């Protein structure tokens, strides 16, 4: 009998390659500009921070008899943020962990970690989507409402945030002598879906991050570029509202924030945790199942509504 490929048993045809394939991981962008706040344990589950409103100016001079001027009221408001618990887990039978050819619990830990971080990001995204002020792009030319984002829209947002006394987040990037580079002004941060990349690239004057005076130094993988006074950070899990435009097209919610516009709250004793339980726990008398889980406590909210704007754009 001739021995050929056709007669090789399947076990011989195959080799299990222990080098695992990459799992897609999303850019986590929505907590980039959040002020981190720690809620101490045993002090409730709602974090309250307060703000004293600015006093009125007093441009009227004292009269000649030097009467006291009227007193002003000092107003305080509170911003409350509730912290919630999030958790997930997987169950693996011991039979799997002792027969599988790669260390599956290691992969389980990695995937749980990824899910945890991406969940933290999505929580902030949904918070911004739900509570941020809305500004429609109107400078584009696609005839929809909002239109696709244009330079005039980004300039309008910068003007709005400046008028609201929002501080920039990053400092100016100076020009250099390198060919193809340009300076970039002090900048607010914008978090948006990667579906907006063609719209960004199409804006006149948009700088890809390789055109920054410093090149890509001091930038993140998620940063796509900038224009005038906004730097853009993209993620495949950026916010999109389906069919939400005048014409029924998908709308990208592009969150532009100034410094200290929003926050993320973590419980001191409830930070990200990996929890492994070997066989024998949870009514498992025959020691047949492992569990691997993760948990975290998180709350998130906008702390100054004037400093976080949802610049809505179509064209995606």
């Amino acid at each position, binding site marked *: 009998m001739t021995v050929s490929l056709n007669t090789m048993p399947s076990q011989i045809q195959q080799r299990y390659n222990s080098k695992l394939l990459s799992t897609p991981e999303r850019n986590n962008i929505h907590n980039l500009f959040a002020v981190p706040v720690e809620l101490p344990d045993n002090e409730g589950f709602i974090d309250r921070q307060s703000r004293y409103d600015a006093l009125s100016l007093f441009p009227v001079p004292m009269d000649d008899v030097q009467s006291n001027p009227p007193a002003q009221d000092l107003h305080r408001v509170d*911003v409350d943020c509730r912290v919630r618990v999030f958790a997930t887990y997987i169950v693996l039978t011991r039979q799997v962990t002792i027969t599988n050819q790669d260390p599956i619990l290691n992969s389980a830990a990695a995937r749980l970690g990824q899910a945890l971080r991406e969940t933290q990001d999505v929580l902030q995204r949904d918070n911004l989507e739900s509570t941020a002020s*809305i*500004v429609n792009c109107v400078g584009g030319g696609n005839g929809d*409402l909002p239109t696709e984002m244009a330079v005039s829209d980004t300039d309008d947002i910068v003007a709005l945030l400046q008028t609201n006394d929002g501080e920039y987040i990053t400092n100016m990037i100076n020009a250099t002598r390198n060919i193809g580079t340009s300076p970039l002004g002090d900048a607010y941060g914008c978090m948006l879906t990667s579906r907006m990349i063609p719209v960004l690239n199409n804006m006149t004057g948009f700088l890809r991050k390789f055109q920054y005076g410093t090149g890509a130094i001091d930038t993140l993988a998620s940063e796509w570029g900038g224009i005038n006074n906004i730097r853009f950070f993209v993620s495949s899990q950026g916010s999109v509202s389906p*069919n939400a435009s005048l014409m029924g097209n998908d709308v990208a919610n592009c969150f532009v924030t100034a410094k200290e516009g929003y926050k993320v709250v973590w419980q001191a004793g409830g930070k990200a945790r990996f929890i492994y339980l070997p066989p024998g726990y*949870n009514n498992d008398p025959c020691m047949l199942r492992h569990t691997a889980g993760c948990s975290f406590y998180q709350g998130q909210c906008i702390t100054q509504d004037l400093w976080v704007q949802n610049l809505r754009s179509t064209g995606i």
Partner: protein
Amino acid sequence: MYPQQMIAGGTFALTTALIASGVEIELQSQGPTPDYIEIKSLGKAGAFNEGWGQSGDAQAIEWWWARGMPQQAAKGILQASEASTPQLPAMTAYTITSSGISCYDTANPPTFAALATTAITGSAGTYVVSMASTGSIAVGDYVLLYATTGELQIAGYSFQVTAVTANVSITLGYMASSGTVLAADATAGFVKKYIPNRYYPKEKRIANITQAAQAVVFFTEKNDFTPGEQVSFRVPSEWGMTELNNVKARVLSVTNSATVSSITLDLDSSGFSAFVFPTSAVAAAGISPAVAVPSASMVVPDPLNTSLVQQPPGTNLLDAFDNRNVRLIKFGPGLFNVSAHTSEAEDIWMWRAFKYDLFNNN
């Protein structure tokens, strides 16, 4: 027992509102979806001979949904009206494909197909949306209007439904009660039902604002605001009352009735310019919406006299920013009013949800 084996159950009592809107049951720890859900009519409390086996009253008495069936579908039994002795009502096996049983989490809700509309009565201020098919839209549902012919100023807007006449029309009652009247009706467009996530409190689009010593702000859907909360306004110039743009004000009282969604503010708008919903042409040229966004907490007003502060002074915790998403089983209104078999207010239904330890799909 492992959580994936959990069996949950309980009862709920219908009301007239729930018959129209359906019933939501929170079921947090049942995994992505249960494998089997069933509900049975028990009749009214203390009336054992009602519901299942009731004399002379056509009604659905049982529904179930099993893994593998489409969301919103259900199979069940309809009991005919029959009053003879001995009572032998006919039972009819029945299937519905929408407004039945579904299970989802509100952070990742199901999506729905767009439905066509042929008219929206904005010029009468009634906001009745004519639709040859109303699909699974029920009272309380959120819908998005878009691609309208005319009435572009409300295209892209979200509304809550306050009345449904099946396969004839839906009514956007919160918009209607705001008093806003548009110049002309829409003659075509699309209506898409959606389920919003439950972040709280949420930004809301403004339908109207009164000029008064205590301004009243109306919304297109129910609002999350609470007395004592500080709300911040964005009113672009196309909307008239620009004096309110970027202004913050304290909420004195809140209305969230079946047809009215509004807040009364500790703010005198009597000298402000009138709030004007932009025309369709202005919207087509490009505008941003007028919105109210949650801002902060202030002291809580006395509920009996909102001009005074509650005594002892109270601060508001109800307005804490929160993620209120949940996992749900939704028993749609199609279960309680189907093919002339109608349930009644105070009817009690028993529900049970199962998650099999082993699902054998041979």
